[in-house]
């Protein structure tokens, strides 16, 4: 310890710190911090705990203060812009002035909170939930479920005091079509910090008895546009998205759809609309059934009518074909027999011609035959006189020749030419005759008879 030490009073020190801080931090700063606790006091002032976390560990912490009038203004602005009241555990963009009170110490006096930053933060949370669900492929999981043809058995998650629930039930139960629904209410908080765990709990209960239900509806009414950020909660949205039954939401707002609504099988703006949708699904089932009855009549009448027409036209067709067939057959027969007739006639005609030719030939031959025969006979008749004349002439010639010869040889004719015949005692003289010289001979000439005596006899050579 040193001797010349200076001792200050606490006030001196604290005042000096305040003075130094006030000199150093004169202006207001925008600070980003998580509002860990709001610590709203009945006086209307709030003394929130501001922290900064890194990896869930608090790395900075300081107290804040919001004076009542500021708090009310800020809260109004939040409700208008963010549609949420200031909520603990959210990161805010705060306009602060460093304040130091000798008695309370250091705090950040919160002058304003930027609702737009919070809006962005909410948006970021929403986006984060969406991203996570997408990464887990849960975004469309519930929507991919088969929706029952008739969503008749409904597990309702709502608050029994909710106006939305009564609207919903009124529409379902008072339907004029006598559609019957089976509903069972599973009570849950629909607003505030309890919303997420209570809805999740009820969903888990419903899952136990899911075979008794067709769908789950989350119905909330009258809450307006405020306090919906819990429906962007990842845990809740994951539960809804992966629920084994279709979850339908009707949480009564019209803007900025929450993730819960996005991942739900279907979202209706209001519970009434949701009920109307359910009735519509009944219509969608009932109308075709009703129409099927009409269609049954129409189509069966039409079908029978068509079949009757087919049938009648087939009968007509049949009649025509039968008659045509008969007619064709008759014509064929007539044609064939006419052909037969003409062929037979042609054949007969040809045979007739052949016969006629034979007849003509036989007549011609007969006539020629007679002609030839007559010519033969005529030939004989003509030949005969000639042949006779020739024969007679030849004979005449023969006789004439003989006559000529005889005439030639006639002694009278010989004597006429100067010859004479010498006879002795009436006999013609020849060599062998015994005649002597001195015998008497008679000589005969053509006109004289001479008697003479032989003087000399001699023979001549020839």
């Amino acid at each position, binding site marked *: 310890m040193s001797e010349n030490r200076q001792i200050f009073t606490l006030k001196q020190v604290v005042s000096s710190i305040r003075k130094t801080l006030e000199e150093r931090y004169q202006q207001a700063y925008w600070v980003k911090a998580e509002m860990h606790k709001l610590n709203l006091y009945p006086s209307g002032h709030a003394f929130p705990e501001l922290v900064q976390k890194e990896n869930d560990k608090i790395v900075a912490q300081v107290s804040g203060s919001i004076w009542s009038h500021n708090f009310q203004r800020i809260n109004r602005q939040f409700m208008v812009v963010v549609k949420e009241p200031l909520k603990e555990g959210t990161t805010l963009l705060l306009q602060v002035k460093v304040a130091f009170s000798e008695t309370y110490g250091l705090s950040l006096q919160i002058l304003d909170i930027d609702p737009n930053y919070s809006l962005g933060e909410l948006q970021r949370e929403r986006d984060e939930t969406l991203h996570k669900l997408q990464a887990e492929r849960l975004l469309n999981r519930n929507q991919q479920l088969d929706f029952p043809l008739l969503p008749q058995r409904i597990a309702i998650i709502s608050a029994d005091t909710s106006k939305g629930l009564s609207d919903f039930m009124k529409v379902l139960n008072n339907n004029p079509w006598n559609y019957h629904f089976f509903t069972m209410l599973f009570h849950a908080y629909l607003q505030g910090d309890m919303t997420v765990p209570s809805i999740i709990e009820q969903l888990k209960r419903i899952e136990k008895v899911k075979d008794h239900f067709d769908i789950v509806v989350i119905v909330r009414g009258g809450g307006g546009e405020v306090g919906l950020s819990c429906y962007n909660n990842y845990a809740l949205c994951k539960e809804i998205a992966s629920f084994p039954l279709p979850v339908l939401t009707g949480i009564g707002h019209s803007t900025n759809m929450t993730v819960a609504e996005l991942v739900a099988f279907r979202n209706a703006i209001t519970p009434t609309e949701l009920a109307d949708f359910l009735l519509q699904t009944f219509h969608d089932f009932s109308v075709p059934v009703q129409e099927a009855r009409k269609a049954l009549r129409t189509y069966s009448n039409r079908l029978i009518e068509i079949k009757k027409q087919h049938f009648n036209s087939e*009968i007509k067709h049949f*009649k025509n074909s*039968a*008659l045509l067939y*008969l007619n064709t*057959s*008759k014509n*064929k*027969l007539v044609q*064939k*027999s006419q*052909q*037969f007739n003409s*062929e*037979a006639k042609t*054949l*007969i005609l*040809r*045979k007739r011609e052949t016969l006629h030719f034979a007849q003509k030939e036989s007549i011609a031959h007969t006539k020629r035959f007679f002609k030839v025969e007559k010519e033969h006979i005529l030939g004989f008749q003509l030949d005969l006189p000639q042949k006779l004349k020739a024969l007679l002439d030849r004979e005449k010639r023969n006789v004439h020749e003989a006559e000529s010869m005889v005439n030639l040889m006639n002694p009278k004719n010989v004597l006429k030419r100067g010859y004479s015949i010498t006879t002795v005692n009436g006999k013609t003289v020849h060599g062998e005759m015994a005649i002597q010289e001195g015998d008497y001979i008679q000589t005969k000439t053509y006109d004289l008879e001479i008697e003479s005596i032989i003087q000399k006899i001699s023979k001549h050579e020839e």
Partner: protein
Amino acid sequence: MKNELLYTAAFDELQQIVRDMEAGEITVDELSVKVKRAAELIAICKNKLSSTEEDVNLILKELEK
């Protein structure tokens, strides 16, 4: 006996006769036999057609009732 010969057989035989005649393969002696036969066949066919026609007309009339 006549009706026992089927129309088809009768008509075919008739056709054969006509074909033979066309081919000139029929003598006059056969012709008169064939002519007689053809007359028979034509009568058979005609009878068959008429009786069939009656049947058909009866059925068709029955149908229109």
